[in-house]
């Protein structure tokens, strides 16, 4: 028999654990945006070694599964004497991975901005950094918004993998509850629906933001 009671009893704890899911995906996304902007700038640089480094970064973090990246961080960081808390390691790793994807998003968006924008800014004497921060990035963020929201949704799902480094977010919590109650079907389905709810909310917020910005 499908036991709704099990779900109702454990729902508060499960939802409580969602704060780690959100923390990791939101912070990871922010880190990804900042680092992604830097990588994107490197990819568009005139210096060939910067472009090469950016390309290498992107192909590594997009090519190797996140699960492997997390294990590298988990096993390897202590070996080289970096004893960071698991949560920090998880956020950093997720962010490093997101940066690879987001740098490509930003690059695509920048390509969509008419060349004249940067030229006009340079013509009135703006320094390159200002051209980037004041003129190009705000427009790129706006154009890239749907893709960025999509990336955040991917991160919410990807954050389920940080169970392997022992952080008790939704998936890890549901594993423990499933083991304790012998009700894996109900608990994992409940967990799935919590993820779904989070992602539907993010998608909705994204649509509202898009409409706001589309003046």
């Amino acid at each position, binding site marked *: 028999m499908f036991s709704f009671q099990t779900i109702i009893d454990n729902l508060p704890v499960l939802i409580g654990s969602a704060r780690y899911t959100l923390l990791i995906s939101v912070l990871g996304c922010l880190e990804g945006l900042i680092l992604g902007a830097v990588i994107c700038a490197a990819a568009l640089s005139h210096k060939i070694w910067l472009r090469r480094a950016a390309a290498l970064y992107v192909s590594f973090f997009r090519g190797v599964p996140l699960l*492997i990246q997390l294990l590298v961080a988990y096993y390897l960081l202590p070996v080289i004497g970096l004893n960071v808390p698991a949560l920090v390691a998880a956020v950093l790793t997720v962010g490093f991975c997101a940066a690879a994807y987001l740098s490509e998003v930003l690059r695509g968006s920048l390509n969509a901005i008419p060349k004249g924008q940067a030229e006009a800014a340079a013509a009135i004497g703006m320094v390159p950094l200002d051209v980037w921060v004041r003129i190009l990035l705000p427009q790129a963020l706006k154009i890239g918004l749907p893709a960025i929201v999509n990336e955040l949704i991917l991160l919410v799902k990807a954050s389920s993998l940080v169970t392997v480094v022992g952080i008790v977010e939704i998936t890890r919590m549901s594993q423990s509850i*499933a083991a304790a109650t012998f*009700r894996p079907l109900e608990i994992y389905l409940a967990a799935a629906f919590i993820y779904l709810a989070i992602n539907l909310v993010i998608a909705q917020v994204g649509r509202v933001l898009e409409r706001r910005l589309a003046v």
Partner: protein
Amino acid sequence: MLETLHRYGPDLLTGFGLTIFSWLLGTAFGFVLGFLIEIARRFGPRALGYPIRAYVEFIRGTPFLVQLFVLYYGGPLIGLRLDALPAGILGLTIYGSAYFTEILRAGFDAVPLGQIEAARAIGFRNSTIVSRIMVPVMMVSALPALVNFAIILTKETVILSMITVPEIMFQTQTMMSETFAFVTPILILALFFWGFVEAISRIGRRLERRFTHYLIDRS
């Protein structure tokens, strides 16, 4: 290092094989299921639209890992008792189908309506219109996205290790925990994925040429 490789070589080979095997079946079945879903949505009764929409939203809105847990640990409660490997392949199939069906939908939508009308005006039946006109034309626009998603699926395949499928990730983790050597296993993993993804991209480019040969000037 050579000693470790000698000791773990056979296990690693099994791991490589299982990863490629599950990816191959998961991708193929996922594509076929996704195609059938799209055909049902496009040509089936309108009432099918809502359950299909819900299926796609659910699969795309939840982590693959959690879907695997539902299937593998939750399945037996409703009589679906699967070993880890079949469960993993079924999971990949279901997960892939939701994404493939969306890619195919966009591809079919991009087929110019006029080309379909021309076929209808001549008197083709629907099945002929799909197989002779829509699929070949759709493939041109959808193929890059299909290949891209097939590559994404290679990375999802390592998640099968979490339900104890002894694929490459599982094998290297065992190796790591037994030998406390990290660099070699991780190097092996990285090289394997690099080669794997590169091979798929190449096959994808070849397929693309096959499907778009008529756009290329031969004169």
